[in-house]
């Protein structure tokens, strides 16, 4: 009991100093931690921002590409409406090829589809069904072309799906 009292009496003499130093140490650690975190946050933010910008540069023009795809559709229909011996047809065809080439350099590629291949919702969108010589559930015909931008399908090929023979 007396020991306890003695100890208890000794503590208050040293306590103020220790507490102040401890408090300082605690604060120092807290501030250092805060500083390190802030620095790390900034480094991480810079890296993430870099990734975001790179991603945005790659896919940011997706909307523009979608608008251009509508123009390509019109060109396709325009070419189809011209007779093969029409002198303007070849020129228009070359202009379209030129445009497609430059879009390809910016990541836009046509998705190839052939009648008879199995319907695949990863790259095809069904707009209807029709009778055809191809097996049921396969692509009977392509109605609108599909495009991908750096591998991401921005517009699936619009196709009619085969019902098989009647």
């Amino acid at each position, binding site marked *: 009991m007396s020991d306890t009292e003695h100890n208890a009496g000794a503590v208050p003499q040293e306590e103020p100093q220790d507490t102040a130093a401890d408090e300082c140490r605690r604060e120092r650690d807290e501030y250092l931690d*805060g500083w390190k975190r802030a620095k790390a*946050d900034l480094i*991480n*933010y810079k890296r*993430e921002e870099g990734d975001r910008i790179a991603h945005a540069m790659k*896919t940011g023009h997706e909307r523009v590409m979608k*608008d251009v795809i*509508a123009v390509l*559709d*019109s060109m396709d*229909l*325009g070419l*189809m*409406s011209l007779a093969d011996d029409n002198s303007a047809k070849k020129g228009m065809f070359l202009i379209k090829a030129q445009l497609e080439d430059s879009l390809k350099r910016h990541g836009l590629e046509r998705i190839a589809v052939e009648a008879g291949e*199995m*319907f695949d*919702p*990863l790259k*095809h*969108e*069904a*707009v*209807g*069904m029709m009778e055809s010589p191809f097996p*049921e*559930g396969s692509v009977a015909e392509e*109605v*609108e072309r599909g495009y991908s931008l750096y591998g*991401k*399908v921005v517009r*699936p090929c*619009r196709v009619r*799906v085969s019902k098989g023979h009647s």
Partner: protein
Amino acid sequence: MAKILGIDLGTTNSAMAVMENGELRVLENNEGNRTTPSIVAMSKSNERLTGLLAKRQGVVNPQNTVSSVKRLIGRKFSDPEVKRDAAWLSYAIKESAQGGVDVKMGDRWYTPEEISAMILQKMKLDAEAKLGQPVNDAVITVPAYFDDSQRQATKNAGEIAGFTVRRIINEPTAAALAYGMNRKKNEKIVVYDFGGGTFDISVLEIADNTVEVRATGGDTHLGGDDFDKRIIEFLVSEYKKQEGIDISKDSLAIQRLKEAAERAKHELSTAMESEINLPYITSDAAGPKHFVMKMTRAKLEDLVRDLIDHSIALVRETVTAAKPKGAGLQISEIDEVLLVGGQTRMPAIQEAVKKLFNKEPHKGINPDEVVAIGAAAQGEILSAKDENRKTEGEVKDILLLDVTPLSLSIETLGGVATPMIQKNTTIPTAKTQVFSTAADNQTSVEVHIGQGERPMMSDNKTLARFILDGIPPSPRGVPQVEVTFDVDANGILNVSAKDKATGKSQSVRIEASTSLNKEEIERLKQEAAAHAAEDEKKREFIEAKNQAESAVYLAEKGLKDAGDKVPQELKDSVNARVTRVKEVKEKEDLEAIKTATQELTQELQKIGELLYNNKGPDAKGPEPEKPENTA
């Protein structure tokens, strides 16, 4: 740290969000889209498809493609709503053993919970792939009018998908959370939610950190899709009038028209007119036909006016009707209005809502994503509680970082205030820039530090001036004086200037760089705004004058350096132009200064060309120098 995913499980589309690095963020799905169609299908090859893939094959496989299952979840088969919907659903439904609804997909019957679970499971997998860590917990939203059975069924769907459903919250409550409305006291809020296929109104009351739903209303069969339908019908009938051709049966033409109509609708939210241009839409005996039509915002509003009016009438009824049909409130008692759902981007809707409540509705957060964001906010609150910490948003607030209320500038040639630290920069911060002298053999520079947004230093507030001397005599633009502005966390600004050649430096400490009182900051900002045009002119004038001076200096130096190598004729011509520039420089005619300077520069180029072409590589013409930042 385990993340809790916030999910807006919608009738037509679903979205998910999460708290990441202190910010609520919508997660993209595997296809790279921010929303996922709430559709599940069993393909003809017996493969289960979810989301966009299910949607893409819906047309050719309608009886095995399940959409809008939210309309069935937790309902009795005998429910009048179910009876009404059964008429147009493309898939078969029947009464389950417990009196609920079963849905047929492929050769099996499923409960609506199981179908919803498939959508939720896809979102779980996509979120895990995106975040690179398992996501086990979720907060899922439901419409405020969902009863206990519908909520329980939604929760079950989450559990089937492998989530621990931490909370089912109301969609309008989530929207309020996203806007931080839960921190408000005793407010009454109306949430106007115009989605793709449903229109919901909720009246909320916030008190003591709780959100109570006072009333709900709306129309479960009114949505943005109805707007699209109206536009297409109009375009088809107009085309028939103009060309005499009915394109409504041509699936390709309608598909193209649908996309163009949607684009026009979006465009008309910001523009007053939009052109729909679809070449080769169809053809007849005379050849190909094109579709070209202008649509004005007024026309669009005219087409859907009755739908908007109907929605407003429903809002009025939900707010004012006596309980339990409505909230039993006066319109004037509503404190805030939130807009949710993509269709609320339409200016006519925003105007109608504003007119009804006589206040501006909140619309800052993407209306397609606000519910998912709110669900993620609820997730973060729960997550913080689990981990016994503050929510990430609050953590950020503990360490308050100040900003500089006004720009801090240094005076450069012609009295221009060149900003070193822009306004609203978070402090502590520092910026260093190198300046030079304005005249030959200048041995001292004055560093004049000011604060404010005006381009001319004399219009801003001067904080301090000091002189750095002892710069060795040299031609203008050669000495390099490095000036550093350093603002510490307490807003104390230290400015130092150092001559890089001699290492001599001077500095000043300004205590009160950020402690202007509010009125003073406001006054300076307002002054800047009020004088913006006139200041711009003044700045342009000074810039032109500086360029003129610089050109004169270069011409005189060039002629001196070149000596006899330049023919007298050219010398005279340059000198004449130098005199002309000097003359007009003193007048207040900006165009005259610009023209005279340009003429002089052209003549100077002739000297350069002459020296390079005729005298070999050793000869030097006047070197182009960038205009000095001259202190």
